[in-house]
């Protein structure tokens, strides 16, 4: 450049340094007061139910059955997918909308790595917040002794679900213009209604995969965790989903959907 004749040297991109940069960019484009409040509400909801349960003492019934039900309906069916939806779609959707996605894709960093780091960002954030919801609700309802390992099982299941949902919604953000709406429809209808109504859909439901993983890690024998697909099928399903999301997302980034970069 003018004024200095020493040329800039280019080398291979560093996986770790680019991952940190991509995480920081994800954070910068994701975090907003509205989003933080939404995620806080989702984390607090299972805890509120546990508070009501704990306040009734012995009248509340079996704590394991209570936790299993709440973890299924409030964590696996609501908190985990919606947090993953918010974390998975926010950055790419905002960048595609305002055109700043260009600054990511016009670099030498492989596109699959960009997508993978975004999936990791969504998965880690979802796992962390889901774990807070699971442990908060568990401790309030049953104390620290975690009967039949239910809380530990659902912590692992929500981390597993965070990865699957994170991958799905990250890809959705790159493939559709209305990722948030499409994701909400998916969570509410597919996961909320259809997957619990039609047994054939169990194999295509991240919620049911999460319940299968939780069921394998706990001694409890509730109906919710015994009716779904096997752990093996769930792991295969999630792996296929994550790989598809990275491949489809990377292909999409080769020629990204950007609202308008100029006239």
């Amino acid at each position: 450049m003018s004024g200095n004749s020493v040329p800039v040297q280019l080398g291979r991109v560093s996986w770790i340094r680019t991952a940190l940069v991509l995480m920081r960019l994800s954070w910068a484009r994701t975090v907003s007061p509205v989003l933080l409040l939404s995620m806080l509400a989702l984390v607090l909801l299972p805890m509120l139910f546990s508070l009501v349960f704990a306040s009734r003492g012995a009248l509340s019934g079996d704590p394991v059955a209570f936790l299993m039900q709440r973890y299924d309906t409030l964590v696996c069916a609501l908190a985990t997918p919606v947090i993953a939806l918010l974390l998975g779609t926010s950055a790419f959707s905002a960048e595609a909308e305002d055109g700043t996605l260009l600054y990511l894709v016009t670099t030498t960093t492989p596109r699959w790595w960009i997508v993978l780091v975004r999936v990791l960002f969504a998965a880690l954030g979802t796992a962390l917040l889901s774990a807070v919801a699971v442990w908060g609700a568990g401790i309030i309802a049953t104390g620290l002794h975690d009967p039949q390992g239910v809380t530990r099982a659902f912590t692992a299941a929500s981390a597993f679900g965070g990865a699957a949902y994170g991958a799905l919604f990250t890809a959705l953000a790159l493939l559709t213009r209305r990722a948030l709406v499409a994701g909400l429809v998916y969570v509410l209808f597919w996961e909320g209604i259809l997957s619990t109504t039609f047994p054939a859909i169990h194999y295509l439901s991240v919620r049911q995969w999460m319940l299968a993983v939780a069921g394998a890690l706990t001694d409890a024998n509730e109906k919710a965790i015994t009716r779904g697909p096997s752990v093996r099928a769930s792991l295969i399903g999630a792996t296929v989903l994550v790989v598809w999301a990275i491949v489809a997302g990377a292909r999409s980034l080769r020629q990204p959907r950007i609202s308008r970069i100029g006239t």
Partner: protein
Amino acid sequence: MSEPVSTPANERNARDTVTDGGRAAESVALVFDHVSHWYGDVVAVNDISCTVSAGITGLLGPNGAGKSTLLQLAAGLLTPTNGSVRVYGESPTVGPAVYRRVALVPEREALPAVMSARAFVSARAELLGVRDVPFAVERALALVELDTVADRRVGGFSKGMRQRVKLAAALVHEPSLVLLDEPFNGLDPRQRLHMMRLLEDRAAAGTAVLLSSHILEEIEGVASRILVMLAGRLAASGDYRTLRRLMTDQPHTVRIRSSDDRLLASALMQVPTVIGVEVGAAGLMVRATDYASFAREVAPVAQRSSLTLYEVEATDESLEHVFAYLVAR
């Protein structure tokens, strides 16, 4: 000096020369070969063939002419529906390695509002594999005169400052082909002049710069060569004086100051290409149908009449005239 006017035929010859020779290929940064691009049923770029070499090339056209689409095609962000694009001999859509040598500065000014200018430019440098990131970032920020405010969030920056952040992010790895979409938007005159000088410096160092604009003075002031796009087509290419001379079916106005304007006026009326003369306070205004022929004849005519020519100036050679004519054509 005016460069030869490019027509589809000689653009093709130039391209062939380029692709045949290894060293020549390096000198030509960008080649469009019968490139068309459709958005559904709408054609945005229609059968464009041209080349871009080291130096500054202006891409001129009204809004909707297809300039941004052409820049995206050059950056590999779009695939041509027909034809091919080559950046240093290779397709820009093959992989991200092309971005070692290519940078695109989009028209839109959006940047991650919560990040500082330094953090944003650093992020780009990391993603581009720059080895000494702090050094490259500091230099890029100093180049656009943002080094003193580099740690402030870009959300609080003016439009002009954001333009400069975008430019720093594009230049941080010193690309050899820089594509700029309306780069002067939002810049005040001093900033505009600074950016022009900066681009001229880059061009002098061997960088190929392709910049689009719909404001004629911007390009006229900085570009050594101009591509004019209208409705997706390449209407003309060359330097603006040459383009002006393409318009042989439109009269040209030339202002002349001489030792006796009235005598010269009567002498020039005998020249076949002159269709009108007018003597005024500003000098002798001559309207000619063919600028080149007139330019060849005016000096001999003055000599035969024993007149001295003080000044001969084409008054309508600004890009405004070129552009207005091409739009109306």
